């Protein structure tokens, strides 16, 4: 959980100390960025740092720290800890003298680190993440036979230091299930598992197959959408539907599927509109910065909310692509990191001239035409239905056909025009005398006709809503009335301070602009330049996190001094350089990682009586001494339930869909015009990524399993474990239907109970039951069979529409109950 990061840092430090590895603090080897800066940042910078300099002392700046301060003292005298006021103050026992003045005094170990560092010359080095990565040489390891590629050498090096062997490899079956869940978010079929187990298919073959699968883009695109705060509505009170937001989502999916290089991926999203002759796709990519929440409430101050959108764009860009949390600089210079408020508004200036009134681009001419045609057709149908409705309402006010029509041929003509009536009735209508009598059967069907009209109108509404409007929200630069950007004092949009121009933060490599006034394209190219120390590290860290359950930097959204240091810094750098040199090839990087022995280890918990090793076995898995075991993400919970049941509809992309929700859920919120209309089959069985995301009332199971609220950029998801999740997978009609479909399949089989249950285990868990497990499942099946035989009505209720022909409902019900139980096992929703 994100709120416990602090403890990771402490444990990591402990681990480094007692293992004597990872360059722990020996007197001659103190690292400023690893040993000193974190303490300065946490304990000193608030008063003596980039934003505040009490007594004129700035400890982040070597020249200030080594010059005589207002007190007349020298904080740091390089090479002479005894003469350094800093050492005296931090080690003083006198509370009025001791620094820091608040909180616990520094520990003896921390004081020693300062002493050693000053003795060694008090060299300042920039924070690790602000120094560009260089390719490290993979280290020699004690057991090279464990290593499949350089990743393993970096991991083994740390295990060697505490005399720990890596975990055993995962079983082949578990490995293939892991690979499926990680790469495509779906289950391997029982046959695929068997083929891999028997050696019929190789690991590489499967990995390549999955990387080339179109579901790869759905799985990995969804990770990016967390950062992109993707949603289908604007948020805030009105929370209107954002037109065609899904076009951006589909662009992301396609980008992953066609393995678009990451640098291009970044450039097109930030500045696709500024490329030469941008394609429609490149402009759609800029939808990234139209995904922000937007207030359409009446009576708002427009400039206030425009400012908030700009702030969100700066924060999202810096968090997702640079791993920086600059949000605080909106109001004041960063207390800990070397970013000033001016830096912040210089980044803000890149975005300050994008159109924010609903500047929409039009689709292709072809799309326009299709839209107009479809709209005309739907309008005609609506008019037709309205006319029918009007006529029916009129007829309703009469007791009989004769009473309504009398001799009025105009009315009968209307009838003939509006309905496709059988010839016999048309003929009868032309014979006025015969009208009354022969039309009574028709008159008796009025109820049905009204229902038909109502249903047709409902269908029409859905079609109208899904009519792909050829508009897409993208970025576009204002061509006139361009805004001058100012620092906003305390972040207040009304308090304009000094003027600033668009440029990048001082501490990072300088921007190379194409012209005099740098624009978003320059910014994007700067982000993905080889010199940028952050971008590649941040990107590979995200990818690593999705394959191991945590990043090498656990605070994936904060690579600054307040974030967690990398547990494997050289591994991170190796991956980052490898990534850039491969041409920012994401699939290649994933392929390299999943081929490492580190990835293929078992995730089983490990234990040891050696305290150094025991630390490595903690829940944070600090040394990757095993794979991680975690509950799959919210969308994947849905996807594998549908997949296991056979209901999954695998259509790729397109407009959002609305799975069934209880009325009590669809009723929440202010505006009823966006009421939840459940999608037809098979649309409603699509993957979680396609569920319509309404910000003020998100689809409940997505949030219940820690899906993002999508209001701001989110780099790490929580993993909670709650009773509401249990209720959902047991009782939510969507999940129950999966059990019904799966139960029906099982009931139809003619195999022995034991064999059917065995198939179930292989389908759900990619393994066979153990002896005690199969006994428990058989016992459950027998109990349910007996019970449903005695309760045939209950059996029918449970079976519902999922009747298996020529099989007794009690039999099908028993299988559904068993399938429902198996779908609720911890192991089913867990990636091991």
């Amino acid at each position, binding site marked *: *959980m*994100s*709120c416990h990061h*602090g403890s990771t840092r402490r444990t990591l430090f402990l681990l480094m100390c007692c293992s004597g590895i990872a360059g722990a603090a020996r007197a001659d080897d103190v690292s400023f960025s690893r040993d000193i800066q974190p303490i300065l940042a946490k304990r000193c910078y608030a008063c003596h740092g980039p934003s505040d300099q009490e007594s004129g002392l700035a400890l982040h700046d070597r020249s200030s720290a080594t010059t005589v301060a207002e007190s007349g003292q020298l904080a740091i005298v390089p090479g002479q800890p005894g003469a350094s006021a800093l050492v005296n103050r931090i080690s003083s026992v006198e509370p009025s003298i001791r620094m820091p003045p608040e909180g616990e005094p520094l520990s003896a170990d921390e004081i020693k680190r300062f002493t050693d560092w000053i003795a060694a010359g008090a060299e300042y080095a920039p924070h690790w993440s602000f120094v560009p990565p260089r390719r490290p040489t993979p280290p020699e390891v004690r057991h090279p036979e464990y290593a499949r590629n350089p990743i393993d050498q970096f991991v083994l090096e740390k295990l060697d230091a505490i005399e720990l062997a890596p975990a055993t490899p995962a079983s082949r079956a578990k490995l293939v299930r892991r690979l499926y869940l990680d790469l495509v978010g779906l289950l391997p079929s029982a046959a695929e598992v068997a083929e891999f187990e028997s050696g019929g298919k190789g690991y590489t073959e499967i990995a390549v197959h999955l990387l080339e699968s179109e579901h790869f883009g759905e799985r990995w695109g969804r990770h990016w959408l967390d950062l992109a705060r993707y949603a289908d509505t604007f*948020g*805030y*009170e009105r929370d209107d539907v954002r037109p065609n937001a899904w076009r951006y989502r589909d662009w992301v999916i396609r980008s992953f599927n066609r393995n678009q290089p990451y640098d291009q991926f970044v450039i097109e999203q930030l500045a696709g509109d500024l490329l030469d002759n941008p394609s429609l796709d490149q402009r759609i990519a800029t939808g990234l910065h139209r995904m922000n*929440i937007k207030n359409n409430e*009446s*009576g*708002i101050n427009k400039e206030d909310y425009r400012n908030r959108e700009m702030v969100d764009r700066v924060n999202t860009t810096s968090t997702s692509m640079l791993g920086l949390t600059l949000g*605080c600089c909106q109001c004041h210079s960063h207390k800990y990191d070397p970013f000033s408020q001016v830096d912040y508004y210089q980044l803000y200036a890149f975005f300050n001239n994008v159109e924010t009134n609903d500047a929409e681009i039009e689709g292709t001419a072809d799309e326009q035409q299709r839209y107009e045609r479809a709209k005309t057709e739907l309008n005609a149908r609506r008019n037709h239905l309205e006319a029918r409705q009007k006529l029916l309402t009129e007829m309703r006010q009469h007791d009989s056909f004769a009473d309504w029509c009398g001799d009025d041929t105009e009315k009968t003509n209307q009838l003939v025009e509006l309905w496709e009536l059988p010839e016999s009735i048309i003929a009868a209508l032309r014979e006025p005398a015969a009208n009354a009598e022969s039309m009574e059967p028709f008159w008796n069907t009025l109820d049905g006709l009204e229902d038909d009209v109502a249903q047709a109108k409902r269908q029409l509404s859905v079609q109208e809503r899904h009519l792909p409007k050829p508009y897409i929200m993208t970025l576009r630069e204002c061509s006139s009335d361009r805004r001058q950007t100012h620092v906003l004092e305390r972040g207040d949009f009304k308090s304009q301070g000094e003027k600033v121009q668009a440029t990048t933060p001082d501490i990072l490599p300088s921007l190379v602009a194409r012209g005099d006034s740098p624009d978003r394209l320059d910014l994007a190219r700067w982000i993905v330049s080889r010199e940028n120390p952050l971008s590649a590290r941040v990107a590979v860290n995200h990818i690593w996190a999705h394959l191991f359950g945590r990043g090498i930097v656990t605070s994936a*959204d*904060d690579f600054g001094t*307040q974030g967690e240091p990398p547990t494997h810094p050289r591994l991170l750098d190796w991956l980052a350089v490898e990534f850039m040199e491969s041409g920012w090839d994401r699939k290649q990087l994933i392929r390299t990682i999943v081929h490492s022995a580190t990835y293929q280890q078992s995730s089983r*918990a490990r*234990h040891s009586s050696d305290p150094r090793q025991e630390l490595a076995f903690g*829940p944070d898995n600090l040394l990757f001494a095993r794979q991680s*075991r975690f*509950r799959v993400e919210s969308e994947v919970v849905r996807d594998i339930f549908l997949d296991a049941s056979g209901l999954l509809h695998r259509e790729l992309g397109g407009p959002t869909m609305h799975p069934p929700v*209880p009325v*009590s859920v669809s*009723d*929440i*919120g*202010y505006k009823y015009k966006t009421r939840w209309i459940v999608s037809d089959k098979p649309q409603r069985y699509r993957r979680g990524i396609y569920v319509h995301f309404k910000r*003020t009332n*998100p689809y409940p199971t997505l949030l219940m399993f*820690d899906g993002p*609220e999508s209001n*701001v950029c989110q780099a790490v998801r*929580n993993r*909670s*474990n*709650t*009773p*509401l999740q*249990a*209720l*959902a997978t*047991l*009782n*939510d009609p969507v999940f129950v239907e999966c059990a019904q479909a799966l139960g029906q399949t099982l009931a139809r089989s003619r195999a022995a109970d034991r064999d059917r249950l065995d198939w179930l285990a292989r389908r759900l868990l990619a393994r066979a039951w153990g002896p005690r*497990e199969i006994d*428990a*499942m058989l*016992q*459950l099946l027998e109990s349910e069979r007996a019970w449903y035989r005695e*309760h045939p009505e*209950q*059996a*029918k*209720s*449970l079976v*519902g529409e999922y009747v298996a022909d020529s099989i007794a409902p009690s039999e099908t*019900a028993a299988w559904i*109950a068993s399938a429902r139980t198996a779908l*609720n*096992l*911890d192991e089913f929703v867990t990636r091991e």
Partner: protein
Amino acid sequence: MFGNEKKLNRRLRREFLTTAASGIGGVALASMFADDAVAASARVTAPRPTHFPPRAKACIFLYLAGGPSHVDLFDPKPILNRRHGQRMPDSMLKEVEFAFIEKDKAVLKGSPAPFRPRGNCGIEYSDMLPGIASCADDIALIRTMHGEQFNHHPGQLLLSCGKAELGRPTIGSWMLYGLGSEANNLPGYVVLTAGRGASGGSSNWSSGFLSSTYQGVPFRDRGEPVLYLSNPPGIQRENQQRAIETIRHLNEIRYESNSDPEIASRIAQYELAFSMQSAAPELTDFSSETQATLDAYGIGRATPRPAADMQNGDTYHRFSANCLLARRLVERGVRFVNLVHASWDQHDNLKHDLDWNCRMADQPIAALLRDLKDRGMLDDTLVVWGSEFGRTPLGQGDDGRDHHPIAFSMWMAGGGVKGGIVHGETDDIGWSPIQDPVHINDFQATLLHLFGLDHERLTIDHRGLDVRLTNLGGKVVEDVLFRGNQ
């Protein structure tokens, strides 16, 4: 049964949620751990020690979203009435922003409602809330609430999260995080809505960046009280029991070979889910209440037409039922009940709509206060009346008022609050505070204080910042704290 109990790490203890006292697997679960104390302390939301002794144990937050008019309900202004129809000086309007009012046309609007002194304290309340007014001696009325947000959703976020920013935990999440819960078979943070929900939707009970363990669980007053609480058709309690026993058994086998504490936690969540399935329907079953109680709350009463909340349903009954449910939830150890009703946003039709709302809210809220008092629960149950802002003393159109965050009224009762007092004073027309202003963050600090929590110490390290409910502000309003024989 489990060979490596001693090796369960601290995380297991922290995260393992036991239901040892209840649920079908209670005995089996308890036996998984030699040390019951360890198991008991392992509940994620187990009660936690406070910073100092608490006065309140539970909070019922009556969230009347939209901005009820303070000058018509809680803050009598005879001078405003006398100046009805007059313009305000331009100097006062200069720095102010409105959602809808056009400044050059704006004139003051007197209140149609008579006020009179109530209770022994003699504090004046509007005749539109006679029931609540009859509890005046138990209420600490704050007339100088203020915030900066003059639009609904940002204002609601300020009130719920301490800052007008999405993605932060709401008050109930902070309380659950800081205090845990004493409810064994129910969630610790429950949301009740009647009529139209607040415009901010679920962001008003979100856990923000905290785990979803701490989010408010909406109890629904129609259909099943908790989402997916009912078994599907054809699954009876005995089938469910067999399913959960089998799930537990198989999960235990997996735990033996894997010893991942998450499995133990999963087992516990299924047990709790199962016990909630019986506890929650029992909670919403009012058959054990006396007819006198039901009548006092107004259960089953009719909803007058036309409805001010744009609902064509039974909002009056639902609001009454929610007030009664709130008491029953608190009785069962629930920490925080957020009772939400929107539609206090009277830009027009104020006379009818405000009256309609008051008739809905007044009787059940008064009944709730008296009921809690009669049962001896008011001492440690804090009841709050609150909204994101009040309404302008200026009129909007013929019969409306605009949003007004500069000054408005909220009140607290019970839970260690001094009754029968007014805190703060606004100017002659109810425009701005002239004495003892209370910012929304101050109110939140006070609320936490009553629960034994120091708002400056209840922090979470999020993205390098120590985030707290009261954002950068917050000062406890000492004046409203009961200092009697503690």
